[in-house]
């Protein structure tokens, strides 16, 4: 891909996720990131590509996840499960995102 300046519309994904219905399984996140020093390119990409912006870099440059707004699309699983960088499960039955329209 040619390098193009990225689009920044100023949209906040939090405002989008606010419209959704979730049943959060408190204390039992269905996705975890394995401890690491430096994230791989794919893991780092998740900070941009995850449609719910669940992944963020901490001050030490490591990638962390807060899965509360997760829409269970599986993009991170496809990118980072094969390398073992994340562990991905479905939420327990009845938990997670509940689409009103889908």
């Amino acid at each position, binding site marked *: *891909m*040619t390098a*193009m300046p*990225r*689009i*920044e*519309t100023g*949209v906040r*994904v939090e405002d*989008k*996720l606010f*419209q*959704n219905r979730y*049943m959060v399984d408190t204390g039992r996140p269905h996705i975890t990131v394995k401890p690491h020093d430096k994230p791989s*390119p*794919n893991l*780092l*990409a998740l900070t*941009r*590509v995850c*449609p*719910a*912006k669940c992944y963020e870099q901490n001050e030490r440059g490591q990638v962390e996840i807060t899965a509360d707004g997760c*829409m*269970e*699309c*599986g*993009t991170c*699983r*496809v*990118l980072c*499960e*094969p390398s073992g960088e994340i562990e*991905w*499960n*479905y*939420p*327990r*039955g*009845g938990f*997670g*995102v*509940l*689409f*009103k*329209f*889908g």
Partner: protein
Amino acid sequence: MIEEKFDAIVVGAGMSGNAAAYTLAKRGLKVLQLERGEYAGSKNVQGAIMYASMLEQIIPDFREDAPLERHIVEQRFWMMDGHSHSGMHYRSDEFNSDNPNRYTIIRAQFDKWFSRKVRDAGVTVLTETTATELVYDTGGKVIGVRTDRRDGEIRADVVVLAEGVNGLLGTRAGLRETPKPETVALAVKEMHFLPEEVIEQRFNLRGAEGCVIEAAGTFTRGMTGLAFIYTNKECVSVGLGCLVSDYSKTMESPYELLEAFKQHPSVRGLLAGSEVKEYAAHLIPEGGYKAIPKLYGDGWVVVGDAAQLNNAIHREGSNLAMTSGRIAADAIFQVKSRRDAMTAENLSLYKKMLDDSFVIKDLKKYKDMPALLHTQSQNFFLTYPELVSKAAQNFLHVDGTPKLEKEKATSAAFIKARSRLGLVSDALKFAFAWR
């Protein structure tokens, strides 16, 4: 373990799972269906366009009570650059027949309706239950599933894996691979609510008529992708999908791209003043024929998105899902009626029947298309949309330049961007992949 044994367990209550469960129960089999969501549809996302013929083969009188949004009388294809769209429209009053062929639907509502039909047919539907593992006998045949409920092991003669594009059960068991970034697209979508009459005015519709727009162009920033605008009764579905492998390379953000698409001058006015009530994301299988995994084995079959059965060129997925579910059910019923065991050999009947159907025939036709579009994405999604826009402007802008000079300028722009050889080769490759 739950003592009761079933003829079949269907994992998932999407299009393929509902089609399979319904068909199996109608043929007299004892069926259990598992769904991890609160209700059927609560985890499912689609554009969504539903094709009537494939549903008619399962529930012939579906029009009587299915929650259908609008029947489609107009299809628009747009090729877009930053400030323009050119395209192709087709609208016909003949689409206003008694039995329209295509409808827009809202999946959560449609799936609830389908699930009621499944229950009425006699299927035991267990929601809020995640299947976690397959259960095998000592010979390696699948004999049931384990769930996250207490005493969660359930036995059946055959397990129908209708677990969707991101299904864990079959991939964990090694029955198929986890989708690769190159074989799935990430789609994001919003539901924009507007008064019915506003939608009808903006899209030139009367009553239950519907219009759908599908667009490709520079808004995907060179990535292989597509956007859509579908009219429902009281809302408009707007979404955009690109290959996951492209996203990981460009590190673009899907919601930023969607936002930019919504702000495009050709789109903005269609959505003005709307209230967004949901934001959803889902993967779409894009690998085509070459990505189809093994479809059956000892005690199991796989259907729908889980089997990558999606025609990306014609944007058909749910009808392939429904059809594969129905055909798998028919195959299982035939094996069962002969009192044969659900072995891989006997279940290979499902593949034979699917090979003879439009599902595999269509996917085979376009087997080279994913590779072409995915590797040449810059040309098809960035360069050509810009060239076409320039050519159209050049053609329409009247300024006294002799027409011959204008045409020369247009062809020169194409040659400069792609070279003569590049243009011919793109055209040929496209033609061969389309064959």
